[in-house]
């Protein structure tokens, strides 16, 4: 595994960082949580952040933390699906298609919620699960997998996720439509 400084990766995939933070902020606004500070992109670690009010509302905590995962993944799927055929199947050298694929991959690469975000859900989930909150019960496996994948970032698990989503999802959609 070769090492590339985080800021270089962030720089090359900056649309994904911005969308990730914008999704955090969007869900904070939807659930009417106070937003104390926002940084959509910087060449430092972390590449972006949203400092918001803590909440005991599990649904709000879940969607604020997981919002970027859903939004970035969805955008990754759409952009990669639009460019999948020329890039992977037809081997057509279309610069615009490659641009869309890069855009999709950059979104997919920054889909993972941070460990901090996951900790927030993890702390609230047991109590909510005991009360029979279905979302809390469902969140366990998702958070567990994402937690492990987050550690896998050092071995490019985030890029792997982006590529997997950018290939598998368009292929599945294509097979479904044809």
């Amino acid at each position, binding site marked *: 595994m070769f090492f590339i400084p985080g800021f270089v990766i962030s720089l090359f995939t900056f649309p994904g960082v911005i*969308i990730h933070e914008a999704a955090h902020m969007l869900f904070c606004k939807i659930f009417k*949580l106070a937003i104390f500070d926002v940084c959509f992109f910087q060449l430092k670690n972390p590449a972006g952040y949203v400092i918001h009010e803590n909440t005991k509302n599990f649904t709000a905590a879940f969607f604020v933390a997981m919002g970027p995962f859903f939004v970035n993944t969805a955008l990754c799927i759409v952009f990669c699906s639009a460019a999948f055929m020329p890039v992977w199947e037809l081997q057509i050298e279309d610069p615009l298609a490659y641009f869309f694929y890069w855009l999709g991959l950059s979104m997919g690469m920054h889909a993972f919620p941070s460990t901090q975000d996951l900790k927030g859900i993890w702390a609230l989930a047991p109590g909510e699960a005991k009360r029979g909150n279905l979302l809390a019960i469902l969140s366990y496996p998702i958070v567990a997998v994402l937690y492990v994948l987050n550690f896998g970032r050092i071995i490019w698990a985030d890029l792997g996720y982006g590529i997997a989503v950018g290939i598998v999802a368009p292929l599945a959609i294509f097979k479904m439509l044809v």
Partner: protein
Amino acid sequence: MEFLWFILHNVAMRKANCTTCNTVIPLSSAYRVDDAVYCEACANKRFNEVKAAGKVPRVTTITDPTICAKCGLDSGNSELSLTAGLPFCIPCSQTVMERPFPTWLKGSLAFVFALLLVALWHGRPYFKTGKSLARGERLLEQHRYAEAIPYLQPVLQSAPECEKCILLLAKAQLLTGDVEAAQKTFGGRTQFERNDLSDEVLQIWDRAVRAIDTAGEATKLSDQKKDEEAAAKMNQAATLYPEMKGLSITAEYYDAAVAFDHKDYNRFEQIAENAWKQQPDSAAAVAMLASAVACQYAITGDSSYRRRTEELLERARVLAQPSPDDQKKYLEYVERIRYRLQSREIIDKDEYDRRFRQNLPNKGKG
């Protein structure tokens, strides 16, 4: 005035005493380390001590309820209202609760949305091509090779560098026996990335090439009047590449020639009947059958054979009409078959030519 306001507010702000050095510090700049209050320097010192003792210190900042957590405005002795658990002045409270998306971000998001539409619009023709490729591929899996070709041809026009598309179309063409079209599809390309598909297609290609080479050898043997060897070779070619119907048909013609040479007219007729069944609209197949039936007439004198020969010759004439080449061939063999009917003598084309067409170079059998 401003100075007085500053003094008043600084006097009014809440203070705390550092547990270690006893210095009086503003509450908002104090830290709590495991329930004791410290100034920043002592908090750092205490933090390191606790950590060195192998424990995890709990560190929190302390908020002064009279000072805005965002802009630092000191409200004197009156406590600010709490927003999300922190004291904020009214403007800052509004800001944290209703923070708008920056204009540049709104613009960027609109741009991303527009790009999304462009991407989908841009991907439409590729999707169509991909759909055609998937259909062609599915038909190939179902062994419906001829039906797959019209789907795969436009794919290759849109994606001429696509190895998979080249290989799939070539496979469909080879498995329908169209070697010439497959050769055009390869376009002189012989190297492909090694995978199951390329291995399979190149194997079929190799088989087809070997069959055509063998058929070429058979033709040469036929030209040398080595009919039996030629028929054996042509049958070998037809077995090697059964997808090419032309090879098995030619093999039947060669077998017919061998039967004629051996004066086995029953076999000759049987082969000719079979060939005609396979190609009912071929003038050549009808002519071969007419020749075989005329042989039976010559041997038996049974007039029903003669009538059938005449019927077949008429059918061959009609079938040959659209093609000048077929017409020319018809005129050549009709003369010989009529001679066979009239004379009841069976001679091959070479002998006929020797006797009646000395100026015309030609080749052929019955």
